[in-house]
C-alpha cells in the first residue's frame, strides 16, 4: 500500500499512561509508554500475563482512554477526537484480530466479513467478502455460522474480516491464544501472508516468544513499562 507519508510513523505514542482506581489506591497499568511504528513494519508487543499488553492495544486502537499521554494514528491525535470520530477513524484505518474471534453468532461467515464494508457503506461488500474468504481457504464455507466452524476456521473468518476494509494497520490480540499449536501456526502464516500482500502494518500482542520472533521488531512490556 502506497502512502504519501511513507517516512512518517503510522502509529506513535507520547508519554502514554493508564491508571485505575482500585478503591484504596491508584494502580498504574501502563507508565510513560513511548513507541513508534512505521508503515510496513510488523511489531510484536510481548510480556507476561498482567503486564499491560491488552490495555496498551486497547489504547492504541482508541477503544479505551488513557490517564495521560497521546496516541497518533495515521497522523491524527486520536484522543483529541470524540468517540464517534475515533470509531470512524478505526473503520477507515484499522483492522482487528481478536483472541476470542468476536464473530457475530447470528451472521454467516460471509456476512461477518461483509459487516465492516456494510457499515462503511461500500458498494461491493459481497464480492469482496467472497474473494477474501476464498483467499483464507473458506470458499466452501461461506454460508456457515460461526458455531458450525472450528476455532481455526473462525479465526480465518476473523482475519478475512480484518482485511476487508483494506486497513493500513492491523491490530492482533493473541490471535492464536484460543487455538491449538498446529492450527495457530497456520493462522499466523496466513496473517503474515495477507499482511505482505496488502502491505499492511502489523501490531501483534502475544506472550508467545516464537510467534514474536516472526515480527521485524519486539517490544517488551513488564509491569506496565517498556523494557526495551
Amino acid at each position, binding site marked *: 500500500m502506497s502512502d504519501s507519508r511513507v517516512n512518517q510513523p503510522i502509529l506513535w505514542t507520547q508519554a502514554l499512561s493508564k491508571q485505575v482506581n482500585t478503591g484504596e489506591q491508584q494502580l498504574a497499568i501502563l507508565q510513560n509508554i513511548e513507541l513508534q511504528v512505521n508503515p510496513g513494519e510488523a511489531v510484536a508487543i510481548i510480556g507476561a500475563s498482567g503486564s499491560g499488553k*491488552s490495555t496498551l*492495544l*486497547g489504547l492504541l*486502537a482508541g*477503544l*479505551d482512554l488513557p490517564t495521560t499521554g497521546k496516541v497518533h494514528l495515521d497522523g491524527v491525535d486520536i484522543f483529541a477526537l470524540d*468517540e*464517534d470520530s475515533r*470509531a*470512524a*477513524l*478505526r*473503520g*477507515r484505518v*484499522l483492522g*482487528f484480530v*481478536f483472541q*476470542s474471534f*468476536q464473530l*457475530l*453468532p*447470528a*451472521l*454467516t461467515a460471509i*456476512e461477518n466479513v461483509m*459487516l*465492516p464494508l*456494510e*457499515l*462503511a*457503506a461500500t458498494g461491493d461488500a459481497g464480492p469482496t467478502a467472497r474473494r477474501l474468504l476464498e483467499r483464507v481457504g473458506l470458499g466452501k464455507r461461506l454460508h456457515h*455460522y460461526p*458455531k458450525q466452524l472450528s*476455532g481455526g476456521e473462525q479465526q480465518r473468518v476473523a482475519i478475512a*474480516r480484518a482485511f476487508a*476494509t483494506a486497513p493500513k494497520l492491523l491490530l492482533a*490480540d493473541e490471535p492464536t491464544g*484460543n487455538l491449538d499449536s498446529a492450527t495457530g501456526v497456520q493462522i499466523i502464516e496466513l496473517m503474515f501472508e495477507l499482511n505482505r500482500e496488502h502491505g499492511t502494518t502489523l501490531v501483534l500482542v502475544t506472550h508467545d516468544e516464537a510467534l514474536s520472533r516472526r515480527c521485524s521488531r519486539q517490544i517488551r512490556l513488564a509491569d506496565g513499562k517498556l523494557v526495551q
Partner: protein
Amino acid sequence: MNHFKLSLRMLHRDWRAGELNVLLLALIIAVSGIATVGFFADRVELALARESNQLLGADLLVISSQPLPEQYADEAKRLGLAVSSLIKFPSMISNGDSNLLTEIKAVTAGYPLRGRIHLANQSAQNPTGREEVREADGIPLPGTLWVDEKVVMRLDLNSGDKVDVGTAQLTVTERVMREPDHSVGFVNMGPRAIINAADLEKTGLIQEGSRVSYQLLVAGGAEMVQRFRDWAKPQLTKAQRMEGIRDARPEIKAALERSEKFLSLAALASVVLAAAAIALAVRRFTQRHLDGCAVMRSLGASQRQLLYLYLYYFIALGVIASSIGCLAGFSAQQILTQWLSGIIDTELPWPNALPALQGLLVGLVLLLGFALPPVLNLRSVPALRVLRRDIGLSNTHSIAGYLLGLAALSLLFIWKAQDLKLGLYIVGGFIAAIVVFGCLGWLLIRLLASLRHQAGGAWRYGLASIRRRAVASILQAVALGLGLMAMLMLTLIQDDLIDDWHTSLPPDAPNHFLVNIQADQIQPLQDFFQQHEIEQPRMYPMVRGRLTKINGKDVAAEDYADDLHAERHIRREFNLTWSDELAADNEVVQGRWWNPGTHEAELSIEEGIAKIIRVKLGDVVTYDIAGSHFSAKITNVRKVDWDTFRVNFFVIVPPGLLENYPASYITSFYVPSEEFHRVHELVKKFPNILVVDVATVIGQVQQMIQQVSQAIEFVFLFTLLAGFAVLYAAMAATQDERIYEAAIFRALGARREQLSRAWAAEFAILGGLSGLFASAGASALGYVVGKHVLHLDYTFDPWIWVVGVSTGVAGVLIAGLLGTRSALSSPPLLTLRKIG
C-alpha cells in the same frame, strides 16, 4: 437509506439465526391476544346490542303522540337505514256480544326490523299445553288480524272468526305468542292485537284526541344509527322522543355496560402481560447483542449509526410482528366465532377494522416503549468489550429505560379502557404495584439470601443464585407477578360479575305477574298455587292514586310540559303499597326506613321517580285516592334494583294508613315453560286477574347474560396464553447465563440432579415471590376496580393467596425446569466453547 437497508438485513439475519424467537413470540402473542380480544369483544358487543334490540323491534325508535313528519323517515333512508312505522292505540274488539279493550298495533311492511313475531302453530297444539311456535313471515295481510292469547281466551276466538275493530270487520288468522316490544311490562299489560296499517282508515279509530302513539322504527349499521340519532336529537319536539334499547330497558343497559367494561379490562390485562413479556424478552435481546455492538463499534460504527440501525430494526420488527399478530388474532377470533356459533345462536356481525389498528399500534408502542430505550443503550457499549468481556452496560441505563415503556403503557391503558376512570385506576394500580413489588422484592431477596447459610444444599445454591442475579431476579419476579396479578384479578372479577348476574336473575326468577287480584281472591289463589305445587308468592296490596299536591301546592301535568316522561307520570295513577319491611333488592339512599309499627304519615319514594317528579326528602306529597286525599311526608328515598324482575313500587307507606282505601293485590311467581298450561288454567279460573308474562324478556336477558359469560370465559383463555408467553420470556431471559453456569458446575463435577435441584429451588423461590406479589396486587386492585368501576360487591377471598402462590410456584417451576432441560443435557465442553 443505507441504514434502513442494513437494518433490514440485520433483522433478517437475526431472525434466521433464531435470535428473535423470544421477542417475536412475545410480540405476536401479545398483539394477537389484544387483537383477538378486541375483534371478539367488538363482535360480541355488536351482537349483544343487536340481540337486545330484538326486544325493541328496531335499533332505534322515534315515538310521538302526533303523526311524525316525513323528514325522520327520509333522513333515515338517506343514511341507508331500514325504516318501518307503526301506530299503537287502545280500542275495543268485539266478537258478537263480547267486547275487550285491546291494545292495537297497526304495522307496515318490514315490521319488526329486529327480532321476529312468533306465532302459534295452530295444527300442532299438543296435549301438554306446550305449543309449537313458528316465526311469522311478514305482517298481517290487509283485512286480517293477529291476536294474542288473552284476546283469544276472553273473546273465545278461533282462527277464521270475524271481529269488529272500530268500523272495520277483520278476520282472525293467527295467534301471537311473542312479539318484540319495548314496553312489555306493567304499562302495557292488556290484551294485544296486530293489524295491517292499510286497514287503519277503515276502522275509523284514529281521530283528534285519541290516545295514539306513532312510532318510526329504524335499524342498520351502528355508526349510521348513531348518525341518525345525532341528527334527530335537535329536531325532536316536545311531543316526540327517541328510544334505544338502553333507554327502554335499564336491566339490559346495566348488563351491556358491565360486560363492555369487563371485556376492555380483559384486553387491558393482555396488554399488561404483553408488556411484561416484551420487557423480559428485550432484556435477553440486549444481553445477546452486547458483543455485536462492541464489535461494530470496533469496526468503525458510530453511535449515530448504531442508533439508526436499531431504530429502523425495531420499527421494522414491530410492524412485521404486529401484522402477524393481527392476522393471527383475526384468524383466532374467526375460529372462536365458528366454535361459538354452536353455543351462541346469534350470527355475530362482522367486526370493524379498529381492533386491527389497535393491535398494530399497541404492538409498536409496547415494543418501542420497552425495547428501544435499553436497545438504544447498546450504542454506548464500550468498544473495549471486544478485548475485555466483563465490561457491559450499567443497570441504571436499563431501569431508566423502562420508564418510557411504563409511560407508553399508561397511555395505552387509558386509551384502551375507553374510560378515563378505569384506565387511571389500572395505571395507578400497576405503577404502585411495580414500585411496591420492586422494593419488597429487593428486601425479600436480601432477607432470604442472608438465611442461605441456614438452608440445606439445593436451597443454598438457589438462594445464592437469586442473590447474585438480584436485579434480573427482581425484574423477573415483578414481571411474572404483574402478569399473574392481571390474570388473578380478571378471574376474581369475572367470577363476581357472573355470580352477580346469576343471583340477580336466577333461573327461577319470577316470570309471571298477576295484577288486579281482589282481596277475596287471595285465599282461592293461594289454594290454587298449593294445588299446583307452585311456591306461595307474596301478595302485595296496591292502592291507585293520582299525585295532586307537592308541599300543599297543586300539581298539574302542564307544570311538566318540558318533560314528556314526567308529564306521563303525573297524568297516570301511581301504585302505592304499604309495608314495614324494606325488600332485599331495595336500598335506602337518603333518610331512614321507618320503625315498624309507626303511625306517622311517612312515605318512601324511589330515587328515579323522585327526580322525575321533582320531589325530595322532607317534601309532603298528596295523592287523590278514589276521591279522597291522602298526604304523607317523604322520610326516605330508595334505590331499587329493577334487574331482578320482582314486584317493586315507586311509593311505599307504613301499614295502617291505606287499609281503608279500595285495594287490589299484585304478585309475581315462577312457572317453568313446560307447565305453562297452569297459567291458562289460572286465567280461566280468575278471569278478572291480569296475567303479565315476562318470561320472554327474562329468557332473552338470561340468554344474553349466558352469552356474555361464555364470551368472557373464552376471552380469558387468550389472556392465559399471553401469560404463558410471559413465562416463556422470563425463562428464556436467563437461559444463556444458566447454560454457561451449568457447564461450569458440571465441569466441576456437579451431577445433573444436584444442579436441577438447585435450579428448582431458585425457580420455586422466584415463583413464590411472584405469586405473593400477584395475590396482594390482585386483591387490592380487584377490590378497587370491582367496587368503583364495575360496582360489584367484591368479596375478599383468602383462597386467592393460596391459588396465587401455588400457581406462581408451580408455573415458574415447571416452565423453568422445562426451559433448562437442554442446558442440563448438552456436554459442558461444547457449551463452554460456544460461550468462550
